[in-house]
């Protein structure tokens, strides 16, 4: 039974390592009123109009980022896999860029490159720049997710089957490729969502009223509310994961079937 012990041991250690701090955070968030456990900190957070505003702002930004990413990345990844497999190492390289180039540098460079254009001189322009930065930031996750999704179906034969049945490129993308990478796209979209909701540096540098800067301000000005906020965003994440699992169930089963 020794052979079963060590994996479980490590698994438990890992779980503890994640969960103990989480519990400590939760416990701490309940102690806003001295001597009793209460949800006072949560009420404070939820009652703050800034919370709602910044959350809503980041939520919209995240959705926009996801939609734009999907529209750009799915056709690109599809085409690269279908016809330009030699470009894959190049794209893999781009995929690593956001890890390598610090966000500070990215934003300074973007701002310098596009200064004196409508992108930096208007509120909407800055928002576009923000979304543009997030598309870059989320590129590795979205691209890898879509790429893996595409590999799990035989896009080559599916494309030719659709062609022989009379379908053009638009139809193939809309009716065959997109529906079949939907689940993969969702998992990439979820990470993107999480990243955008928590991102601080770029939003702060572009002076956008986003959720990340709000969280940071709160963390430096309050004691118990940041913990409550962490638990709230954690709960929202759980909800999002559950929703994705639920939506993805059928699609996943279909795509993962015997081949």
């Amino acid at each position, binding site marked *: 039974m020794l052979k079963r012990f060590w994996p479980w041991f490590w698994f438990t250690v890992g779980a503890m390592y994640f969960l103990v701090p989480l519990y400590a955070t939760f416990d701490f968030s309940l102690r806003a009123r001295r001597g009793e456990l209460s949800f006072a900190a949560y009420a404070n957070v939820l009652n703050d109009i800034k919370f709602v505003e910044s959350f809503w702002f980041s939520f919209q930004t995240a959705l926009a980022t996801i939609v734009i990413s999907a529209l750009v990345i799915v056709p690109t990844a599809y085409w690269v896999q279908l016809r330009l497999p030699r470009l894959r190492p190049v794209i893999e390289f781009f995929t690593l860029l956001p890890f390598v180039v610090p966000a500070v540098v990215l934003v300074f460079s973007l701002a310098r490159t596009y200064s004196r254009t409508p992108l930096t001189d208007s509120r909407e322009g800055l928002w576009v720049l923000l979304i543009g930065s997030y598309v870059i930031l989320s590129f590795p996750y979205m691209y890898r997710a879509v790429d893996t999704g595409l590999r799990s179906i035989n896009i080559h034969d599916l494309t030719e089957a659709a*062609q022989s049945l*009379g379908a053009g490129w638009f139809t193939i993308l809309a009716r065959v490729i997109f529906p079949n990478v939907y689940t993969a796209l969702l998992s990439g979209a979820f990470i993107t969502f999480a990243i955008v909701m928590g991102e601080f540096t770029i939003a702060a540098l572009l002076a956008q009223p986003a959720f990340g800067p709000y969280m940071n301000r709160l963390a430096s000005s309050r004691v118990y509310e940041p913990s409550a906020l962490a638990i709230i965003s954690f709960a929202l994440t759980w909800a999002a994961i559950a929703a994705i699992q639920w939506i993805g169930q059928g699609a996943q089963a279909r795509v993962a079937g015997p081949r």
Partner: protein
Amino acid sequence: MAFLELVNVRKSFGASVAVENFNLAVERGEFVSFLGPSGCGKTTTLRMVAGFEKPTAGRIVIDGVDVTDTPPNRRNIGMVFQSYALFPNMTVADNIGFGLKIARRPADEIRARVEELLRIIHMSEFGRRYPYQLSGGQQQRVALARALAIQPKLLLLDEPLSALDAKIRASLRQEIREIQRQLGITTIYVTHDQEEAMALSDRIVVMSRGRIEQIGTPFEVYNFPATRFVASFVGTLNLLQATVVDAAIGLVSVEGQSIRVARPLTQHRSGDAVSLALRPELIALDGQINSEVNRLSGTVEDVTFLGSIVRVRVRLSANKLHFDLFNNPQLRPPQPGSLITVQFAPEACLVLGEDASPAHPMSASAAQAA
């Protein structure tokens, strides 16, 4: 003019030539197989007919229309893939109806046609299932129905049975043949399995290294192979080292035992080393044939019971010889180690020269049969 014509088709990828000098005329309703080892160009040729590859040179004409430059989605061709290639996100019915939906046919018509095709493939109750809920054989039947739904001018099948188990392969083979006859659709079938090609086809195109080796009915290709390649690729063959004794009367010697062949050996001279080719099923135990026969004696080396057939391996001295007997529960098969004499008719003997060029006695027979 034939329904499908390939004229001087050639395809090269960079410096390497995949298909060369390909000429073929297929009649309406005919079932033609492309047979050959992997890399012989059979799939490339099929893909050129489908439009997925563009010929480097030559023309492809379907029903009188030159389609060489037509994109694949305008050719109205049904295609079945080895991987089934069903759309995983659609039900069986949606898969079958996909082509009709693209052609913007009315919903009623689509539904009726899908039901008809589900009936043809005996899967009426499976319309709402998804591909992953089906076995491999069922998926391939759906793929066939999907290809047929658009009433294509041509049906192309690219090794459709290769991914399936032996038993399902045999039964689906039968089903494909029956559906093809029932609908009378012109069909091209690519395979590396000679038995499959023979069981299905009206004519077989045997290919090797991008070139056509022979075009003929299964009977012709098997019994009168035009080249040494065809002889050895289609079916199994005994090749015995022999020496020409008298070319004029067709007499050769195998390890000192005289063998008479049906035709004079005009290509050879007495004393030449040749190969004597014999199909295993044309060799019988001594005493079973009554006409003029050749005999060879040797030792039984191995007996393999294959069910309906018992395959016996006989060792002469330098040569080995396989032959087949039908299983008979009342008869004991030959025992390893025993001496045995086998017989075969002079007509069963093909003489091949030592070079790889087409063996002339065979092509002479083929010409007669064609």
